[in-house]
């Protein structure tokens, strides 16, 4: 029942938003076609403008992953994570999540397949996936789009929030499903 409601919201949301915006605009006598294309032009420019920043950050992260440095970091951190009750298998997920969206998605799928979708490990990885974001991608794209190079406290604050998200995912999953 709950799941149906959730799926329903997901299915209705975008069509409903488009319907409301266009109809409301038309009723308010906005030239909807001209307005749309003016905005769309801006969208096109932004997508092109972020390419250099995206290449820079994804290449750096790609090098870190492909070299095995991420695995090394994971094995160095494993004593700490077992102390806080995070299964060793979930640690790669926690490390990957802020760096690479597709990488993290791959790890979640793998953990779910290997340990079962109802297992604690499978659930913990799923909660982590749902409750955190690809921090470095967002940082690179958002700041890159407006050519900000001095990010001040953005990185430490975002990483602190990631840490809080991952820790709470571990604890909450254990409490609810453990």
């Amino acid at each position, binding site marked *: 029942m*709950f799941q149906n409601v*959730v799926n329903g919201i997901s299915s209705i*949301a*975008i069509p409903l938003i488009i319907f*409301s915006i*266009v109809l409301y*605009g038309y009723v*308010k006598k906005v030239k*909807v076609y001209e307005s*749309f294309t003016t905005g769309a*032009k801006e*969208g096109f420019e*932004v*997508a*092109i403008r*972020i*390419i250099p920043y*995206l*290449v820079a*950050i*994804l*290449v*750096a*992260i*790609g*090098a*870190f992953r*492909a*070299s*095995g*440095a991420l695995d090394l970091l994971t094995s160095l951190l494993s004593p700490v994570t077992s102390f806080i009750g995070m299964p060793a298998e979930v640690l790669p997920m926690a490390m990957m999540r802020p760096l690479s969206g597709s990488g993290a998605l791959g790890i979640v799928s793998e953990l779910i*397949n290997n340990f079962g979708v109802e297992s604690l490990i499978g*659930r913990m990885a799923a*909660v*982590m996936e*749902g*409750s*955190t974001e690809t*921090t470095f991608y*967002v940082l690179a*794209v*958002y*700041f890159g*789009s*407006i050519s*900000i*190079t*001095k990010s*001040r*406290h*953005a990185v430490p*604050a*975002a990483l*602190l*929030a990631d840490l*809080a*998200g991952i820790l*709470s*995912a571990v604890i909450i999953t254990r409490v*609810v499903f453990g």
Partner: protein
Amino acid sequence: MINVIFMGLLVIGVVVAGFNCIGLEMTDAGMIMNPSFEPLNQLTTGIFSSAKVAVELAMGLIGIMALWLGLMRIAEDSGLIQLLAKAMRPLMVRLFPDVPPDHPAMGAMIMNIAANILGLGNAATPLGLKAMTELQKLNKVKDTATNAMVTFMAINTSSVTLIPATVIGIRAAAGATNPADIIGPVILATGVSTTVAIIATKLMQKLPRYQITEEGSN
């Protein structure tokens, strides 16, 4: 900070891959060496494919960016955004005290956060970028992030989703009896991380080392 991260990830990557080429292995008979250039080759392949993926990601964004910013413009011209901004005003002026309450940046940020909450990932990015463009108009030192930008960014990176659609999809595909039963824990965990994000940015923005300096200096 960005410079250090960029350099660090690349340099560590090359060093680790180089070291892995020695191929040290622990066996029962002691430590053995198994040299090979394979780790460095993998590094190169990884770097090239990342560069390609970056452009593919941006290309994939073009259409969806154009769509959402087009709709956003209609909603702005018709006054819909302003209506929404008015409703959210009490919360937004507390989160972003430096942004004038009627500034278009407020509307764009509200739309972005709403898209995130609904789990509409491909709408959230265009609206977030639009918000950054608007925030940049208020920025006096163009190469340095403002407090509002950092707070907005931290809210975004901490993920504010109520409906984690992707992961529910994966769990459904894997045959979960109730794929959505992780929603409660997700909302709780995400609430914690967003709260930490907001508190952290508000505290850190006062630290001397994060003060805004004149353009050109470091």
